[in-house]
């Protein structure tokens, strides 16, 4: 795999490619894409030899965000691709491309209620039949944060968080000690 070549291909599919500092965030590339490009990206990733680490949903406003994680065997290249579901809570399945996504998507359906269009067998996997609409991982009313709240604050994250954290935390720590 040539990463530059792959990057070029990503450009056609994504709205933003962000290189992330592995030492801080634990992955290399952060891709943002439109929801109708998810299947194209999956096909590309499979062709390039990536495997699907997992996919998950995050309940944020205005729409639930889907995060697909890919990684590569031969060299370190961990990719997060994120998109959001549409207003009906639907998104296209990638389980016919990455069969491993089948169960992950069923799990997301169970826990967040995201419906995957054209999924071959979207039955409850973890929940019981009668709890289909439980959606346990949806945040309670009022607890849902806006999508900006969970984004890394300085857009260039490299060494930023460290100096930011220390002063932020210190008063907390001393406060606790005072209490005890």
């Amino acid at each position, binding site marked *: 795999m040539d990463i530059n070549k792959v990057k070029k291909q990503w450009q056609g599919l994504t709205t933003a490619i962000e290189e992330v500092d592995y030492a801080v965030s634990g992955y290399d590339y952060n891709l943002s894409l439109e929801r109708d490009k998810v299947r194209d990206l999956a096909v590309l990733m499979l062709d390039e030899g990536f495997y699907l*680490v*997992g996919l998950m949903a995050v309940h944020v406003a205005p729409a639930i965000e889907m995060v697909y994680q890919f990684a590569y065997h*031969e060299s370190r290249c961990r990719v997060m691709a994120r998109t959001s579901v549409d207003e009906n809570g639907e998104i296209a399945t990638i389980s016919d491309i990455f*069969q*491993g996504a089948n169960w992950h998507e069923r799990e997301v359906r169970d826990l967040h209620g995201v419906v995957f269009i054209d999924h071959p067998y979207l039955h409850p996997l973890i*929940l019981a039949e009668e709890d289909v609409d439980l959606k346990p991982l949806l945040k309670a009313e009022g607890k849902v944060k806006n999508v900006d709240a969970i984004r*890394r604050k300085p857009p260039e994250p490299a060494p930023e968080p460290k100096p930011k954290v220390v002063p932020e935390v210190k008063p907390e720590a001393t406060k606790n000690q005072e209490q005890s």
Partner: protein
Amino acid sequence: MSMDIEVLEDSSHHRYVLNMGPQHPSTHGVLRVLLELEGEYAMHLLPVLGYGHRCHEKIAEFKPAKSFMPNTARMDYLGALIYNHGFAQLLEKAVGIEVPERAEYIRVITSELNRIQSHLLWYGAYLLDLGAFTPIMYAFDDREHILDILEDVTGSRLTYCYFRVGGVSKDIDEKFVTKTRAFIDRLRSRYSLYETLVNGNVILENRLNDVGDLNPHTCNRYGITGPLLRGTGVAYDIRRAEPYSIYSQFDFEIPTATKGDCMASFMVRFRELEQSLRIIEQALDGLPEGPVMAAKVPKKLNIPAGDYNSSVESPRGELSFYLVSDGTDVPYRLKVRTPSYSNLSVVPEMCQGMLISDVVSAMGALDLVIPEIDR
């Protein structure tokens, strides 16, 4: 789950459905697999999960991230320390805490002991699946030594909660080092026993060869990692591919096999025992002096907003903790990507058209830990 059965039974009339589990000797926990049989051949498999789901991911959203540490140990009861490791590392990355070198060495030593322990239990339990009763007792005999060593330092025998954000909770002593070295010698002297009793046995060879074929492409499609993937010839190990902790300092091989069947992953796991021993040996030799906890670990861990991922190599494959933070000390969302979940998802494809006996041996080769799937 009556619906599932209907789906299977509708497909054709002369086949019938066998319910394997949730209480079955070879599913190792509350996993249920519906088998659609034609004679003794499984034409269609449908795993049914969720009997022991504890919703750890939801629990994580309710309390400070630091308090989630004991829960990680309960996801995979065989790789508790490795789960500890992944989670501690995640928070250290996110908050930016430097772990002292001695703590990293201790983490590696105990994690590798944990890995050996997990492999030994799998070894015995797998042989039990294949109908050999004795090897599990020999494997347990060895495993007890590890548990004693780990109990001495962590205080518990199974669901360890030993790692802390910023280090480990307790320093190891000279006794630990001598006991571990004695164990290394002991396990090495036991290889010949395992090899003659089990690995070379013609019945075992016939049971495992050419059963449960996988290839690298299938592994990519299903996200299979760990010994199963290495059994197909791909030398992918997170300890080498994305060296975390201090794994880059050690000299160890990644055992691979090429055939991708049960025998391949069996031998890969068996040979990983030796590699783990080598890592432990090197770590014990290079063990530095110093503190085992980072000097400044804030009491309240405010995680800067953003998302963080931490991947480690669990005995069963890639384990990823993915945390989304909104800037508070309570995770906004924590996703645990457990290896068994993806590994098990290949079963319907891998076991299609197999004899029941082969389904048992193929599922045993996945080294399933059900609480990890129903996390």
